[in-house]
């Protein structure tokens, strides 16, 4: 197990998949961060030419209220990224300690925790998120809370598996023989060796959360209008697919690039 973390640091930069993912995410983050200076129009202000096709002024045309699609797609990245990263952070905060304790302590506590975790994983995340979000009302904070709650069991299961494997290694045994307490061993030996898994799972959770929150918006329980939001844009663009297809297709491509990017980052194995 020695050097698992190290090989992760060295490894992925040589992988084309990782680099492609990094490029995609870098581009999306940069465009969202610079939306204020890049967008040439106010994303929420209606214009006088609804549903106009792409031209020199509106590169991807305008939506049903005459709003510039390019500007809306640029601004729409912000809530998606915030929700994705926020949910993954919450999911990590809940899942990692539970996984570490279950894996290291083992025994009955582990069995019980894992039964509950497996049960929670089997419940369809989208449906759970749909019902809860509709109940508590869609807002950025609520979506982060709901998606963090839906995704932590997977993190816990992965971390627990890794902790279980590392617990049996010689260097942990040595640490125990040297008189190291459980908390110290978990912090100094188990946690550092699970960081690689935590990092990749973090990226996958971001992908899943953006995927799910876009689906929720599409179903009509996402961030309320007029805030530009990719899933919501696709939802309204669906009615005008024949008139101005970019209205639905542009935000779709944006979601696709973002989710795919995080998926690539998270699925790169050494």
């Amino acid at each position, binding site marked *: 197990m020695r050097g698992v973390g190290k090989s992760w640091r060295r490894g992925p930069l040589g992988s084309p998949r990782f680099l492609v993912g990094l490029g995609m995410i870098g581009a999306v983050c940069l465009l969202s961060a610079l939306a204020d200076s890049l967008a040439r129009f106010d994303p929420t202000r209606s214009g006088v030419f609804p549903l106009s096709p792409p031209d020199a002024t509106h590169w991807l045309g305008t939506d049903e209220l005459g709003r510039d699609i390019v500007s809306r797609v640029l601004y729409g990245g912000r809530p998606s990224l915030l929700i994705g990263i926020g949910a993954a952070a919450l999911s990590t905060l809940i899942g990692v300690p539970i996984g570490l304790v279950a894996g290291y302590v083992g025994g009955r506590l582990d069995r019980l925790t894992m039964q509950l975790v497996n049960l929670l994983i089997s*419940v369809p*995340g989208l449906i759970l998120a749909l*019902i809860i979000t509709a109940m508590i009302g869609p807002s950025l904070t609520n979506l982060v809370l709901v998606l963090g709650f839906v995704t932590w069991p997977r993190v816990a299961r992965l971390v627990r598996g890794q902790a279980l494997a590392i617990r049996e290694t010689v260097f942990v045994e040595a640490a125990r023989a040297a008189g190291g307490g459980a908390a110290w061993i978990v912090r100094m030996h188990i946690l550092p060796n699970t960081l690689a898994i935590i990092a990749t799972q973090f990226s996958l959770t971001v992908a899943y959360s953006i995927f799910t929150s876009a689906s929720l918006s599409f*179903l009509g329980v996402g961030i309320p209008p007029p805030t530009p939001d990719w899933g919501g844009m696709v939802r309204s663009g669906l009615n005008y697919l024949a008139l101005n297809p970019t209205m639905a297709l542009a935000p779709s491509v944006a979601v696709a690039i973002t989710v795919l990017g995080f998926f690539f980052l998270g699925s790169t194995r050494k």
Partner: protein
Amino acid sequence: MLALVGRRLLTVIPSGLIVTALLFFSVNGLIGSPAELMLGTDATLEAIAELNRQHGFDRPLITQYLEWMGKALTGDFGRSFTTHQTVAEAILPRLPVTLEIGIAAIVLATFAATTFSSVTSARVVVRPMATGLAIVGITLPNFIIGIGLIYLFSVELGWLPSIGWAPWRTGIINHLQHVLLPILTLSAYFYGVFTLVYQAEYDAVRRRLFVRVAKAKGLSERQVSFRHVLPNSILPVITYVGLSLGQLMGGAVVTESLFSIPGIGGLLVDSIVARDYPVMMAIGMIVVITVVVMNTAADIVYTIVNPQIRLD
């Protein structure tokens, strides 16, 4: 063997109780009370209290949960707040629709994943294509895949109707034209998962001795792949079918909304938007119970087919 299957079956009861209680209590905890949910926060406290009393929502949650479960076991899920028909009446006619596209999507995904990844001619090209398509299927949300398909086949090419539903009685061809895109949309994710699972097993099986024997016998690459490797690699895919049911319901919700299909998933979204507590609760409960049952079924099937894991 039988004892093992029995023991696995028994786990359905505690698991089912835990997930249903979790859903019931968390939803009720979040909404305050069903009457409040339906009437909105503007309603007077008296009106809310009155409606809660009428439907028995003012009693302790545990009583309500036990009563709900007891009635549900006899097929009584209450009445819809909006249409006033019984929930069973609302759900039953929609069930075949969801089952049809769900089963078709799973069958299609299984067939495509195993065939596409077993092809031996032009392997250098076909394999990466199969994998690439799998990644697209896994990562892209259903509605985006659906919109892409609608744009391509309905708007640009004009081959298929875009959205809407045509029951069987409107003609077989008409029906098939309307279900084709929804089935493709729904199957994309499962095609992806099944492909990755299948490829891993397929590559491992290919290295086994009996495959070399089959080749030494003089069978062609294609025969070896489809007759010897495929049947021996399909087990993990079958297990995954059972485990994907939850995902399937999630996918059905989005797909049915996108294509305006009158199934259970669409009904769930409608009931959530209309704040129709009884319908929403019934569908949520049915989904979680089905998922628990199917997971156990997958577990049992796996134990029966693969004696190696009968250890515990």
